[in-house]
């Protein structure tokens, strides 16, 4: 029978490196995707995901199962992501200020979304849709964004998300309501086309 995350973590605490490998394999992809959607930079997302695992590993000796493993892990991830977003916003502000000074162009966006592979038309449409969604999610205030990602994509329980974001369950539900209201307006074309 498969061991639970808490059991795996207790085994890691007892010195079993193999259990850490299992946790890594299980949560590597969800973490990278959560962080990518938080920070929107794949490189930064990987870096932060590694940092999460590193912190889990470092804390193994003191681990006590007082919360679900996912609550703990996503709490570390959320805080790292929020810090990174805040740091990055400062950097972007500096860059865009430098740019506007250098080029006298204030309409220039501070940073472009990396546009990697060229693709066929159909793929383009899908990419545009995905990019629209990602953009809209990313435009949400940070806490709303984290709440939506944890609710919609990680499907964590309300009490878990509330603990991660340090708010009450009722406040979390209102937060989600407001976030989805914004997304509904921002993504109106998608929402309507799906509705037909």
């Amino acid at each position: 029978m498969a061991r639970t995350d808490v059991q795996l973590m207790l085994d890691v605490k007892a010195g079993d490196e193999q259990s850490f490998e299992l946790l890594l394999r299980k949560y590597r992809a969800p973490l990278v995707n959560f962080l990518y959607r938080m920070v929107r930079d794949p490189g930064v997302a990987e870096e932060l995901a590694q940092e999460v695992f590193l912190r889990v590993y470092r804390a193994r000796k003191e681990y006590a199962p007082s919360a679900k493993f996912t609550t703990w892990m996503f709490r570390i991830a959320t805080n790292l992501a929020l810090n990174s977003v805040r740091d990055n916003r400062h950097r972007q502000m500096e860059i865009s200020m430098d740019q506007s000074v250098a080029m006298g162009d204030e309409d220039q966006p501070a940073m472009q979304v990396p546009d990697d592979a060229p693709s066929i038309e159909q793929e383009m449409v899908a990419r545009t849709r995905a990019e629209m969604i990602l953009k809209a999610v990313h435009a949400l205030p940070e806490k709303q964004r984290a709440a939506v990602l944890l609710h919609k994509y990680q499907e964590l329980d309300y009490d878990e998300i509330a603990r991660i974001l340090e708010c009450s369950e009722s406040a979390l539900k209102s937060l989600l309501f407001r976030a989805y209201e914004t997304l509904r307006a921002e993504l109106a074309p998608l929402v309507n086309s799906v509705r037909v």
Partner: protein
Amino acid sequence: MSGTQKCSGMENKLVAYLDGRAKPAERRAVEAHLAMCAECRVRAEEFRALWNAMEDLPVLSPSPAFDASLRARIAAEPVRRGFWEWLPSPRLAFAVTALVVMSVWLSSMPRIASNRTRVEAKVEAKVVQMAAEADYRMIRDLPVLENYDVLSKFDALSELPNSPASVTQEPAEQVQ
């Protein structure tokens, strides 16, 4: 967002209703409201459509180097950490440095009569306050520590120069 007063009760119920996790009483309340509010019926329908559309986000695969790189970072973890590495935030490191510098400066200050005690007390109070604030911020910024018994990991904090130790203890206790 709708300004309708009667809909305000939906704000903390509708999402849980739609994702199927509402409690029975909440579910009944939402159903009663939906039966009489066209606006919320549209909203509910569009929330569902939105969630559907949101499924289309591409899923990123971690790069092949992810595991190797993580293992390298774990292997590089120091077994025994130096003093400065125990300080989890630059602000705390700064406060400790300031504390040491200030106390050296204070002890080397010429003892000039009347003003001395007042100046010294003032500076000392300032330093104590700074250290306490830095300590508090450090704990607030490190939520990993909360509830997970990880605090013991920072035993080394008690090794800090101990002039304002009694002040810096308090915020740490509040966190637990």
